[in-house]
């Protein structure tokens, strides 16, 4: 039993808006007309396409393989035909397209053969590979590959934490999942425990979801597993942040640059546990997820959606109101605007939030910072956002790093409380992007310098080699000449001239010898009959030439 809960510093309590979408049970979204599956998974992971246009695929079939350590496989979410592989809009704030596989469903939704996986017999390493090939990533939003997180850390994992906090307003997909499928989530957690060798499983749920807490507790009781504990944590945004939840449940504070595994703790979203259970127990790859549709909609709720469904096809299910002017992917605190409604649902999409001028009024104009320090009070990463703001604004990026810019989790608490309504997170994102771009440029410059210096060294070496070769050749020639002089034994005017003469003589001698050797070999050792025949032919040729002479021009 956990005797005591800890506190993380800062945090805010925005209106939760969970009731709007939490009541209706999870409904299945209908098959869309087409599915778009981006090959890009993160800045460091791009899957390798395995299909060609025109190919028919079954539900759950691998269509792109994992490439590199941070990548997972991509599967066909339903049976159908691959239409094209081309750049398509993706849910990314840039609005730029990225290479994607487009599938047209055949409407029959036929599964590929599903075989359950015996993870105990296979062992941890094989199971991790299996999860990678099932396309399992964290479903909390960041989409970090689960097989990497389940890998053996430095110390091994003592405590497994299931993150059901769902602290962001409006979103209820984890809440509904915990209410409806608690046993599957806990089975998934037990599989993860078998892989990592953890001793206890803690499920952290914010106390504004009493039904989810109750459902999970009942499931834990019926499993009779004493190592599983369901803990209701105080509702305070961002309690669902990984570091924050670990802090609340275990008291461990994870410093910059370290991961939970360094302290024997690892944290997974409840949705990921559910996906892992489906993969291991039923052999089902990750082809669908629960998505909350909420905000400015008449029938908000949660839907089980195939990965790759365009947002546009999903919206009629929740009936957005007429005054909706924009859509967010994610919640109001951390979500990013959807650049296009053609962008598909990806594995990290937990919510599509409809906004209207009444519901989310446009940000009022930014006022000067009054140094009130509210942002520092609420920052859960214990940073000084106002300092970071000064330096980001002035583009002094070295200083922002000194003030631990990269500890910022972009939770938005500082922007939320700022009385001057400064979009602080926007400044931090800008600064982070600039720093990354500079690092990239620096790496490119270093590569260019290395290649340039190598080229100079190579040119130098080639020159030296050529010179050495020439010198060796001249030396060899001189030696030969000297030998020739010795053989002829003639007094010479100057050794230089002699050497040259001797060289010429030697060359002539060589040419003569070659000419002799080059005599056609088939004229030697002829029989008398053959010689007679040759003589006859020559005589005939001479006769013909004689006859032809009067007809030829003089110069021929």
């Amino acid at each position, binding site marked *: 039993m956990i005797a005591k809960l800890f506190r993380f510093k800062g945090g805010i309590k925005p209106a939760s808006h969970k009731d709007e979408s939490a009541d209706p049970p999870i409904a299945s979204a209908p098959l869309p007309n087409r599915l778009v599956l981006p090959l890009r998974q993160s800045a460091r992971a791009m899957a390798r396409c395995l299909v060609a246009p025109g190919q028919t695929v079954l539900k759950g079939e691998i269509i792109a393989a994992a490439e590199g350590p941070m990548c997972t496989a991509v599967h066909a979410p339903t049976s159908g035909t691959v239409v094209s592989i081309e750049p398509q809009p993706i849910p990314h704030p840039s609005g*730029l397209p990225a290479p994607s596989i487009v599938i047209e469903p055949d409407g029959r939704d036929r599964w590929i053969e599903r075989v359950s996986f015996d993870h105990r017999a296979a062992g941890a390493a094989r199971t991790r590979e299996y999860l990678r090939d099932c396309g399992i990533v964290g479903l909390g939003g960041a989409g970090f590959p689960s097989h990497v997180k389940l890998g053996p850390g430095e110390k091994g994992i003592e405590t497994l934490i299931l993150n059901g906090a769902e602290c962001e307003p409006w979103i209820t997909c984890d809440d509904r999942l915990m209410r409806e499928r608690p046993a599957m989530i806990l089975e998934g957690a037990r599989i993860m425990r078998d892989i990592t060798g953890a001793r206890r499983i803690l499920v952290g749920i914010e106390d504004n979801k009493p039904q989810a807490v109750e459902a999970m507790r009942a499931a834990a009781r019926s499993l009779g597993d004493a190592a599983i504990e369901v803990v209701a944590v105080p509702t305070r945004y961002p309690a669902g942040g990984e570091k924050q939840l670990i802090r609340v449940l275990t008291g461990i504070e994870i410093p910059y640059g370290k991961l939970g595994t360094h302290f024997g703790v690892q944290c997974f979203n409840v949705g990921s546990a559910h996906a892992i259970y489906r993969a291991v127990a039923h052999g089902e790859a990750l082809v669908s997820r629960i998505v909350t549709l909420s905000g400015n909609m008449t029938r908000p709720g949660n839907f089980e959606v195939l990965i790759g469904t365009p947002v546009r096809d999903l919206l009629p299910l929740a009936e957005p109101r007429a005054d909706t002017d924009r859509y967010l992917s994610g919640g109001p605190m951390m979500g990013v605007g959807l650049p296009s409604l053609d962008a598909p649902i990806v594995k990290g999409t937990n919510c599509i939030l409809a906004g209207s001028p009444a519901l989310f009024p446009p940000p009022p*104009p*930014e006022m000067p910072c009054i140094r009130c320090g509210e942002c520092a009070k609420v920052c859960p990463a214990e940073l000084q956002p106002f300092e970071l703001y000064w330096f980001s604004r002035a583009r002094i990026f070295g200083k922002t790093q000194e003030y631990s810019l990269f500890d910022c989790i972009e939770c938005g608490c500082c922007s939320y409380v700022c009385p001057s309504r400064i979009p602080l997170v926007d400044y931090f994102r800008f600064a982070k992007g600039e720093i*990354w*771009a500079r690092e990239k440029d620096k790496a*490119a410059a270093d590569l*260019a310098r290395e290649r*340039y210096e190598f*080229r100079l060294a190579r040119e130098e070496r080639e020159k030296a080699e050529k010179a050495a070769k020439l010198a060796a050749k001249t030396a060899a020639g001189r030696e030969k000449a000297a030998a020739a002089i010795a053989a002829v034994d003639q007094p010479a005017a100057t050794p230089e001239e002699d050497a040259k003469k001797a060289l010429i003589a030697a060359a002539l001698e060589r040419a003569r010898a070659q000419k002799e050797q080059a005599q056609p070999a088939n004229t030697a050792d002829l029989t008398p009959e053959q010689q007679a025949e040759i003589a006859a032919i020559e005589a005939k040729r001479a006769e013909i030439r004689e006859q032809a002479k009067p007809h030829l021009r003089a110069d021929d």
Partner: protein
Amino acid sequence: MTEALLVMALGAVLLGAALGYAAVRFRVEGDPLVEKIDAILPQTQCGQCGFPGCKPYAQAIAKGEAEINQCPPGGDEGIRKLADLLGREYKPLSAEHGIEKPKSVAVIDEQACIGCTLCIQACPVDAIVGAAKQMHTVVAVQCTGCELCIAPCPVDCIRMEAVAETVDSWKWKYPVIPLRQAA
């Protein structure tokens, strides 16, 4: 009096010996200032500064023989960094050395390439692959965009293409507040 002189002389000798030893023992190979300047330069190796590469330009700056505003690929930011490092006055980019352009890479029209290898010899970072009478192509990730391959091409089949923004190279923009015109 003599004693005092002797003591001072001894001190001078000892300190001199210590300095002499330190000069030999802690000798710095190369010029650290040149390295620092070279680290700021973009390593395009384009020669627009009038020197045959970034390192020679860095050496010239360190010796005070060149201005800090002769590097178009480094741009305004590069000049500011150099000014900061060297404590010199900031100057806008000198127009005679070129203008700042968006980053581009060379692209060879492979249909037109005759395989003369002239561009391969011109490329300062060996980013063009090919052989005599074989088609050549540019390895885009290694191309610095120096444009040195364009002039030697006898069939003019090399052009510069600006690097398009992708999802991975996209950056969050500097936050700006849209101003609405008052009625």
